[in-house]
């Protein structure tokens, strides 16, 4: 139906490519400056990614980043910055693990219950920030950072053995108890490589839903309009407060879902070892992916690769922290390069429109058609 605009595609890709090249070059420079071979670690990482078990790890991590990045992206589309995805993700994983371990239901129902509890918890937690913003004008940036800190304390307190925590015999770890097998989400067995979480496919399906909602519904149009110009959106009839609250709730629900691949697919409990920081990485993933479901998929894959393929660099004498340097530089490079590309694109289009009009390329007016 819509023809693909080659120009638009090139300009769209220019931002991420510019950012990635910049961060790659800078990472190589950092390595060289610290007296290490700058190319060898990168070769090692690519070699690692050839092993099937690393590939499975990368795919699984991609699903997790994908969900969390969708949560961030839906906020970004309307200029809401939900930094609280990490807190919403952790609290939701914990509460849903508790509920999941406490009940026993037939398979699909058990899973559904855990998933719904996770979404509700995430939405509740982000909803607090939403309500603070709509009723008191508190910046969601500040309130969600605060809520992250509260999450840390809250989770630490809830998981104490005197509250809801369980200490497995002979271990220092604390968990929320094991979820019965009816609450495990079936995965795909990859033989030696391990298992791909089944929830990864739910994540991909949600990417499609995200695209549809943003691009093809009235709600999505209002959301995008608000992101592009709040004043124009309001004049067009968008209820700003309702939009902020709705977007925050959806963002929190998605953040809650991002703990599900691990919880339902592998750990089956929330423990002290549950990964943290997913929600922060997701901010970069969403930025790099330009808040577009396909872009986010690629950037989630890239970040999962950086994470998982670097894990044994230490063994060869290279600091695996170089991937963190690279990720950090990507954040800055992305912001700068997108703004540059955006300005360039606007200028270019204005020029093009001017040229085409001068060349008589305008759509014929009815007078001319009638004549």
């Amino acid at each position, binding site marked *: 139906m819509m023809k693909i605009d080659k120009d638009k595609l090139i300009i769209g890709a220019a931002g991420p490519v510019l950012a990635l090249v910049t961060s790659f070059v800078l990472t190589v420079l950092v390595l060289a400056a610290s007296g290490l071979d700058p190319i060898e670690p990168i070769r090692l990482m690519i070699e690692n990614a050839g092993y099937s078990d690393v590939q499975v790890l990368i795919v699984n991590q991609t699903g997790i980043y994908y969900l969390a990045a969708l949560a961030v992206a839906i906020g970004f589309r309307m200029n809401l910055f939900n930094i609280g995805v990490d807190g919403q993700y952790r609290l939701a994983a914990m509460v849903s693990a508790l509920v999941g371990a406490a009940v026993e239901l037939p398979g699909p129902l058990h899973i559904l219950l855990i998933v719904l509890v996770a979404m509700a918890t995430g939405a509740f937690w982000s909803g607090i920030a939403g309500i603070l913003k709509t009723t008191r004008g508190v910046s969601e940036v500040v309130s969600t950072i605060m809520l992250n800190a509260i999450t840390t304390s809250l989770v630490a307190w809830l998981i104490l053995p005197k509250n809801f925590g369980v200490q497995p015999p002979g271990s220092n770890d604390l968990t929320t108890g094991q979820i019965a097998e009816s609450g495990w989400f079936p995965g795909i067995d990859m033989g030696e490589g391990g298992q791909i979480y089944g929830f990864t496919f739910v994540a991909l399906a949600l990417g499609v839903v995200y695209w549809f909602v943003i691009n093809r519904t009235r709600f999505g149009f209002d959301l995008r309009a608000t992101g592009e110009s709040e004043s124009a959106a309001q004049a067009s*009839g968008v*209820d700003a407060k309702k939009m902020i609250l709705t977007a925050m709730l959806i963002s929190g629900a998605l953040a809650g879902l991002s703990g599900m691949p691990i919880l339902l697919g592998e750990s089956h409990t929330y423990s002290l070892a549950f990964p943290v920081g997913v929600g922060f990485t997701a901010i970069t993933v969403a930025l790099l992916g330009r808040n577009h479901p396909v872009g986010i998929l690629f950037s989630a894959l890239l970040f999962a690769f950086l994470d998982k393929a670097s894990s044994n660099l230490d063994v060869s004498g290279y600091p695996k922290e170089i991937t963190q340097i690279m990720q950090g530089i990507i954040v800055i490079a992305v912001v700068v390069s997108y703004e540059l590309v955006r300005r360039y694109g606007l200028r270019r289009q204005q020029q093009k429109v001017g040229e085409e009009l001068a060349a008589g390329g*305008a759509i014929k007016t009815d007078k001319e058609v009638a004549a």
Partner: protein
Amino acid sequence: MGMATPDAGVISLDGEDISKLPVRKRREGGIGYIPEDRHRHGLLLEAPLWENRILGHVTEAPNSKRGILDPKAARKDTERIVREYDVRTPGIDVTAASLSGGNQQKLIVGREMSHDPKFLIAAHPTRGVDVGAQAQIWDAIRDARREGLAVLLISADLDELIGLSDTLRVMYRGKLVADADPATITPEQLGSAMTGAATGHLEGTEQSEDGDAR
């Protein structure tokens, strides 16, 4: 339009009290709106023209059906607007920002006229617009008036006011201070009323206390 809360008074459309209705309900109820500041309130500058055609009318045909957008119909209708209102553009996929002010404004006028408004608020409809576009916008408003559309024209352009209006009310410092018949009033008289120098009916009859419909 429902963007500001009135201190007093009632706004009614076709006998129905709309004072408490939100912006979207008022638009759906048949109010067309050409905003004073088209960049802030009328357009999504970085969105393509066909999406700007949807702005403000996302719940109405042909833009959407049952909550789902219909880009195909919206695009087709954008092409019609571009044709009928002579918006000079190479296509409907260029951003609104890449058009000149006059063409942006013609797009807005065309959009607001496309939903059978019962009432059109035109705030400075030709401010910052080239002469050719100005004439076209005036023609569009005149044609709509002839077909029975009620237009509230808010403007500081004396020729525009006198040329388009059936009746004139002058506001000065938040109050209605004068009224006039555009057929007989001179721009000088109207101008002095706008600066507060002349009040009352500028031909001698009683002052009207009509509320402002905004």
